[in-house]
């Protein structure tokens, strides 16, 4: 009997870890892309996630623009549609705020402008969070789909032990993987991808080679915002959220990105996946209130055990 429950719990934790982990992976790619290309730690990434959720919510449930697609397709198409909206938002943020404290403008200054970047993104985060409270209200909402209450059953595998696959999470999982693959191929094989990687590697040299680095950064910031927003839209199908939701996920993103090696896009995905796994497994042994604390502990352990992260770039030239 006990074994049966244990097997059921572990199997469910594994499947939930994989599905949720991949969605986290997508979310982390957004932050990882921004850091990888621009070397900026974006404090407001959680709020971009929140914007993605609300964009999807207003498209599907609130504004009913996409209600003709029905409750099955609508939420996921809504999540994808959040991308261009938040992309525009991100590009505007970069154009008017971020670009003034980053890029070639601060290269070679006292601390490469890190201080200013952290502060400006913190400011954006405060404005979006609290402004979100004014615009969206503080009552939690959700993108309604009947799928979030339905599950595929696999098994019984061992006596009564059954694996439950939540349909909303499963579809979100597939969409997340699809988006991640498309992004990967874009960065790897297109001209745009090359420009982004060149701007990331050496902005000054890229400028001499005729790449508009400022534009590359703007696209990177917009793209990073959009990717996280899509993940937000997908998550909105199975959780309820308010303007402060970004906060619960921003540390997950940092953990994933640091774990995967700051700067690596694929790494960010694996990092997010790992964090999702850890979170789901901690649910097996810890009370639900402490699940979030676990992520912070994991985050601290990652950063502390690998002071330079899982990548180099710490060696200072003397």
């Amino acid at each position: 009997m006990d074994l049966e429950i244990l097997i059921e719990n572990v199997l469910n934790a594994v499947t939930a870890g994989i599905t949720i982990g991949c969605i986290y992976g997508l979310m982390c790619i957004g932050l990882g892309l921004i850091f990888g290309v621009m070397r900026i730690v974006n404090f407001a990434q959680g709020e971009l996630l929140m914007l993605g959720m609300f964009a999807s919510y207003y498209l599907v449930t609130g504004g009913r623009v996409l209600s003709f697609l029905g409750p099955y397709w609508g939420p996921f198409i809504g999540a994808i549609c959040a991308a261009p909206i938040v992309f525009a938002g991100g590009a505007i943020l970069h154009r008017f705020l971020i670009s003034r404290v980053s890029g070639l403008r601060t290269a070679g200054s006292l601390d490469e402008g890190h201080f200013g970047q952290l502060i400006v993104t913190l400011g954006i985060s405060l404005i979006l969070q609290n402004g979100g409270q004014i615009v969206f209200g503080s009552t939690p909402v959700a993108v309604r789909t009947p799928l979030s209450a339905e599950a595929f059953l696999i098994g019984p595998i061992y006596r009564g032990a059954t694996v439950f696959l939540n349909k909303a999470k499963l579809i979100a999982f597939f969409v997340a993987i699809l988006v991640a693959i498309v992004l990967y191929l874009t960065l790897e094989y297109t001209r745009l991808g090359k420009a982004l990687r060149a701007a990331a590697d050496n902005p000054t040299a890229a400028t001499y080679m005729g790449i508009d680095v400022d534009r590359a950064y703007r696209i990177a910031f917009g793209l990073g915002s959009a990717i996280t927003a899509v993940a937000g839209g997908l998550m909105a199908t199975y959780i309820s959220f308010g303007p402060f939701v970004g906060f619960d996920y921003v540390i997950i993103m940092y953990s994933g990105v640091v774990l995967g090696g700051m700067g690596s896009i694929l790494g960010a995905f694996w990092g997010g996946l790992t964090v999702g796994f850890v979170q789901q497994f901690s649910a097996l042994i810890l009370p639900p209130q402490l699940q979030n604390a676990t992520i912070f502990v994991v985050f601290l352990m990652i950063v502390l055990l690998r002071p330079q992260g899982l990548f180099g770039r710490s060696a200072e030239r003397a």
Partner: protein
Amino acid sequence: MRHGAGQQLRFNLTVLAVVSVAYLVLASFVANSYYQLILTLVPVWALFGVSWNILSGYGGQLSFGHASFFGIGAYTVTLAVVYWSLSPWIGIPLGMILGGLAAVLIGLPTFRLRGHYFALSMLAYPLAILYVLQYLGFQEVSMPMHRDHPAAFMEFAEPRVYTLIAVLLLVAGVVVSLLIENSRFGLALLAIRQNELAAEAAGINARLWKMRALVVSGMMAAVAGGFYARILLVVTPDSVFGMLVSAQAVVVTLFGGVASVWGPVIGAAILVPLAETLQAELGTYLPGIQGVVYGVAIIGVMLLSPDGLFWTIRDRWFGQKAPEPIPDSTASAVPVRPASAHSGAPLLKVESLSRAFGGLKAVSEVSFSIGEGEILGIIGPNGAGKTTLFNVLNGVLSADEGSARLDGVEMLGKKTFAVCRMGVGRTFQVVRSFPRLPLLDNVMVGAYGAGLSDRDAIASAARALIQVGLQHQSGVVAAQLTNKQLRLMELARALAGHPRLLLLDEALAGLGREECDDVLHVLAQLRQQGMTICIIEHTMHAMMRLADRFVVLDHGRVLATGLPRAVVEDHAVIEAYLGKKWLARQDA
């Protein structure tokens, strides 16, 4: 006390006294209890900002998690009253101690990190504590009243008393901060912020000073939090450990002026009443308006006056008065080490030193020695491993194998600052200055790094400046110095710590011919005073004049050693520099 600090401190203390008395007089006319509460909150948040400023402003270690300490103070005071009926008069000092302990526990692991990583990790601590408190069931704890002994439990019917206490706490905090600012503590922090490696190479134990800053800062933040809990009477994890709390410290300080004690005070005095009033007037229609105001405030300040209001106002309306140049007589106060005779005994002995980066052997089995009073030139083509050799010798990089003994004592395996304290001064290929500090303070860092007392440090710095001929520029900030002056400044900083051995990495790089001669002249004088120097340099004509002996490195190995004349005629050396073909043509 730093040079000229006494006068500045007296001025600041006078301003502090005047401002706090004026504030209290003003507060005594306010009868409305809500506005009185705002007047009490201003000094509390200002104190919190002052605490953040010590670590993140002076020291540059950006912390987004100062709510940890604020919250610890607040919960300690509240829980002490609830469970042990312990008065806040005791609870606040208790919280202060716990805040300090928490700072040690948090600092020990977290100071292994730098930059982004430090800032992000600090963020995680208050949030982790927040969830644990929620789990433990301390969602909302209110402080019971003790009507029988109100004053003993810091309970006053008159709200103005709270304002008085808050102002007194802030005054204490500002005084501590001023003392830090004007002492070696502050100078060490400023140096670490502007160039940590240069500070380490000048003998500053960066880790230790950062830790001290965090402890002082944590204690101060806990006091602010403890008193905050006392005036609000209810604590929730979100209200004292939340993100907005950490942000508050950052916001008031950046807005008012970072790295000045007045910054957080000005910031709190403007932003706290503004945000509170907006919240009260518009909070029902526009919830969260406070956060929006803070966000707009810090973005605006960052874009318009990145250092904050205080500095912008000061630079615009109060022209910066350069401190008086120090009188030459100051220098004579320090006993000059007698010039050691050219005994020729090896001072530094390096044996089969190796260091690889992955598969690349940057330094491989290098052995050489330097006699007391000798000038050894290290030459070699680009990428020969010269700078890496210096980095290994002074502890910036670890060695893979080999040994380096200074007067018989092993140098390898020691931290950079410890190598400096053994008597090894160092300059860098690309000058590492503390750009916002005046020249004298740049050099003082080296003197403090050697552990000299205030008086000796000033004397020693003054003497070093005279040695390099910069005594008349001592008040100029480093950012305004020319390349030659910067090179000499770095040399003076190394000299101020009374080194036995100087490692000079391309001290002549980027200098014109005449400037070159000036620096060479200084080096020649140092030689006469018996200084032992190991110098990396590309300019051959300069090296031929200066060095007693050459060590030639190529691909990490020692190619040749010997007298300058012999070395430059060595075929292997010519080949390394100019290639085989050239050599063949010469021989033909």
